[in-house]
């Protein structure tokens, strides 16, 4: 009996020592990479390439404050665990990456570590960027070092809540959820090179999954739910599923339409709004035709996991009480029909159709409420320089009216989605009220 206990105790001590050693190595076992040890020569073609890649990775989306100096950092990324502030990526030696070597930069992307070996928080999407090749990393580095204006701006300290602010918590997270990519094993060239290129862009550089993949309670990707849609933390927009037919799957879109949508944010089948309009504006509009087609190839080939494609419903569904239905129809004529058409048919190139519109009908109604309350413009791009905009109805319609109007749209012309209530709306209106006072 005593011997059993001793063995058990011994095993426990051994296990604790093992875990402690692994955690300690994760926290402290990585050295500073010095720039002096690794001279780096950049070619102008490499710098151009790096500029392109930095756009597709949308580095500036987080590392540039609105209206601020390019890549000087300071923009806050609000997470459920606290605020993380993007770092200064300009070549300033004291406060930016001027003293970083290309090797240190690659380690940051690939292994999520700062120049001194310190672990970085995964709000910086290194779980995606770990797939970026050394060649592409060097090009982005060359661009940042040689073409970006150095700006002296000391990095803002993160304000994470306990226990997420401890390096022990971060080391544990990394051991559980992060493994640097083994790029060699993934390098096999199959027949479909466009698909491979697309996978590299979607999974890695463009980090689509950072918003579109479901996360667990600790903010890590949930196994088996890649691209299955997720609420954006703290801003009340929904990044729809890229694998659900009734959300944003593009499995049945022609390849050209998908590529064009990435480059313009508009198509007959849907328009980018909210955070995605910003992504198209800042990033995907610059995709080369080949890369846009490659991403389209990969997105089109994603497995469809749920949902059915829209078919006009022959029967009319009840949209609540008859009086509310009349009110909804009346409001539609007054506020919506002049653009979206008397029967929700829209107008090609200008106003999206509401019949079969997935944002109108999908189970998660966050984007529908956000679009109607806050309005928005499609992104301004080279081929669509003067996009159409949707007016915000936050100030114009009362809660009851807004819900009656949406229920009319969701239950007319073959649309048959369940009726909404003012309770469904309240959360989004409150969210905007808070935002408006900031």
């Amino acid at each position, binding site marked *: 009996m005593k011997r059993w206990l001793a063995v058990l105790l011994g095993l426990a001590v051994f296990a604790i020592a093992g875990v402690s050693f692994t955690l300690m190595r994760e926290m402290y076992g990585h050295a500073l990479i010095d720039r002096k040890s690794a001279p780096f020569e950049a070619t102008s073609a490499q710098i151009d390439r790096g500029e392109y890649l930095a756009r597709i990775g949308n580095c500036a989306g987080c590392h540039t404050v*609105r*209206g601020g100096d390019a890549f000087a950092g300071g923009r806050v990324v609000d997470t459920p665990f606290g605020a993380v502030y993007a770092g200064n990526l300009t070549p300033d030696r004291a406060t930016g990456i001027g003293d970083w070597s290309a090797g240190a930069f690659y380690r940051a992307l690939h292994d999520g570590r700062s120049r001194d070996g310190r672990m970085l928080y995964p709000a910086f999407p290194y779980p995606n960027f770990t797939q970026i090749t050394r060649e592409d990393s060097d090009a982005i580095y060359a661009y940042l070092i040689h073409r970006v204006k150095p700006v002296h701006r000391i990095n803002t300290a993160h304000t994470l809540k306990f226990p997420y602010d401890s390096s022990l918590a971060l080391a544990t997270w990394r051991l559980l959820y992060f493994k640097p990519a083994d790029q060699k094993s993934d390098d096999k060239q199959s027949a479909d090179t466009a698909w491979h290129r697309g996978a590299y862009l979607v999974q890695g550089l463009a980090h689509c999954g950072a918003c579109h993949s479901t996360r667990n309670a600790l903010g890590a990707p949930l196994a088996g739910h890649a691209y299955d849609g997720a609420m954006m933390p703290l801003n009340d927009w929904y990044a729809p599923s890229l694998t659900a037919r009734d959300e944003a799957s593009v499995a049945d879109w022609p390849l050209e339409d998908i590529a064009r949508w990435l480059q313009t944010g508009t198509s007959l089948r849907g328009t980018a709004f909210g955070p995605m309009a910003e992504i198209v504006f800042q990033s995907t509009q610059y995709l080369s035709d080949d890369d846009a087609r490659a991403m389209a190839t990969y997105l089109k080939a994603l497995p469809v996991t749920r949902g059915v494609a829209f078919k006009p419903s022959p029967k009319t569904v009840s949209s609540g009480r008859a009086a509310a239905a009349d009110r909804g129809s009346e409001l539609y004529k007054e506020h919506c029909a002049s653009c979206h058409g008397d029967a929700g048919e829209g107008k090609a190139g*200008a106003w999206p159709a509401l019949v079969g519109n997935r944002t109108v009908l999908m189970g998660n109604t966050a984007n529908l409420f956000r679009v109607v309350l806050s309005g928005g413009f499609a*992104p301004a791009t080279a081929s669509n320089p003067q*996009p*159409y905009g*949707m*007016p*915000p109805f936050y100030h114009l319609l009362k809660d009851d009216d807004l819900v009656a109007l949406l229920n009319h749209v969701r239950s007319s012309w073959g649309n048959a989605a369940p009726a909404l209530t003012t309770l469904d709306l309240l959360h989004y209106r409150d969210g905007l009220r808070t935002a408006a006072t900031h």
Partner: protein
Amino acid sequence: MMRYSRFLTAAAATLSLLSLSSGKAADLPDRLAACTACHGKEGRTINAEYLPRIAGKPAGYLYNQLLNFRDGRRTNAAMSHLLQPLSDAYLRDIAAYFSTLDLPYPPPAAPKAGADELRHGETLVLRGDAARKLPACAQCHGTPLTGVAPAIPGLLGLPAAYMSAQLGAWRAGQRRAQAPDCMGEMAKSLTQTDINAVAAWLAAQPMPPGSKPMAAAPGPLPLKCGGVPQ
């Protein structure tokens, strides 16, 4: 032949002017429904204290404000959200469109302020206060207070609540412009009493008929302004 070529030159000039002022899309007003839903039909607000009229304001001023909202120098969640995915070029087109609208102004609302307050406001607006080193509003915004093209706005035809809210926001640093931020500096040397008086007097003035922004300021500007070509 001579006449023909002159005609061609004139036609080309007209065409290039048109493409400059009205942008590329013939249906630009339709594209801007998101603006007019709140700022009123054709950019003329009907009776909303915090939704200013935008029709007929100088194009450079409107453009600067669109940039300020998009880039975070002015804070208004609704405006910022709308402008995030828009390019500088489109913002310039939008500003140009609303600046060209020439629509009548309603008569001013009867002032709620007393005679002393109005007199104080009038003095500050038209003459400033030399002892406090305050230049008159009219020194930059034009003697008829209808603004100066391309970037200094007129001060008439706006509700008192809107005017005092804007001056208050400048004073508190919540409304900002490109550096050097001359209006921020100005507003910080005003008291709340000054602001209320200035807003009350301005809102009580009728719009002079046929008034347009002046082509040039009456004299050199007393302060340097980042958003104004000088």
